[in-house]
């Protein structure tokens, strides 16, 4: 298990745009460096990427939720 941490405070989005599909869903496979969402702060959107390869087990932050630096956004089951 590995947590994907937010490097930033701000608002977390799971989709690249309001009408778009989520970057990934629970149960999906992710690769190292794959974008799983983005954080908005200071009018900038920063992509959050996975440091691990595996399956997204669970999102801890909902779409539109607030995150703090170092907070776990999602957990990945490695392998």
């Amino acid at each position: 298990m590995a947590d994907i941490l937010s490097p930033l405070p701000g608002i977390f989005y799971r989709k690249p745009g309001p009408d778009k599909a989520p970057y990934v869903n629970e149960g999906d496979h992710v690769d190292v460096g794959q974008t799983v969402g983005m954080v908005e702060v200071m009018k900038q959107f920063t992509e959050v990427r996975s440091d691990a390869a595996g399956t997204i087990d669970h999102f801890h932050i909902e779409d539109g939720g607030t995150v703090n630096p170092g907070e776990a956004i999602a957990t990945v089951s490695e392998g």
Partner: protein
Amino acid sequence: MAFEILEPGLATTVQDRGRFGYYNVGIPQGGAMDALSAEMANALAGNTPAEAVLECTYMGPRFRTDDAAVIAVTGAPVDVKVNGGARGEWSRLELDAGDEVSFGILRGGTRFYIAVRGGIDVPVVLGSRSTYGLGGIGGLGGRPLRAGDLVPVGNGAAPDGSEPPQEIDPGLRPVFEKEVSVRVMPGLYDHRLTARGMETLLGATWTLTPVADRTGLRYSGPEVEWEPRQQPFGAGSDPSNIVDAGYAVGSIQIPGGKEPIVLHRDAVSGGGYAMVATVISADMDLLARSAPGTKTRFRSVSMDEALAARAHQRSLRARLWGSGD
């Protein structure tokens, strides 16, 4: 020599003590938002207080130096890494040519500072090297750093006379707290609030929102009550509107009576919102250190108290530079 920027961080800018004397034509003072932390970084690097440093917001850069360098990192608590190995903040760090510097995830606060002996050597614009992003002047191209930038570093002559400090005494370092009390002076437009409105401003606990940058910081909390009046010609229709006036750095406006905004060092110089109180100069750094979510109370002080706080801060700085008070 230069630092090659491999990753720029979120909003890394060149800042010095600021660009004074042009607010009347709309160009703000700018400068490091947490001025004391920036000054301490310069002291450690063996600079004067005037050299330009890098201000890093939330997410720091990753960079490589092309020559040996003396640097120091101060401000918000963050892991400093040189070639992947852990190093400390608040102390002098020696780099070799080719060394790579990177940072971990912030553990509190918002901004940290990187000083390098010789200073960041970008051109001086209107008396300052500070980046004013909204105006596109100063710093490196008038903008935050980008990947691939070569950030010029000045010739780092060893400081003359006294040896610079190896580290900043823990008792002198600024603290980065989740709850802060910020001193304000009511005015210039405090008469626009009812007595109850002013009680709300000074009595409530305000929470810093993520809507906070070099221009200003927005807080959430209760709604304040305005004195009813017929809005004068030239003022907008909302009771928080006034006929346009000059804004003081640190002034607090409350558009619509909700979510006060404190203007910081890159703020516009005027507009049409009533400034109900103004943060004293000695406490401007406190705002710059606050992370979103920080519980903030505004405490009213007199002009004498504000001036005493300013004098106290000057004497602390004088001690940092070894010149007593």
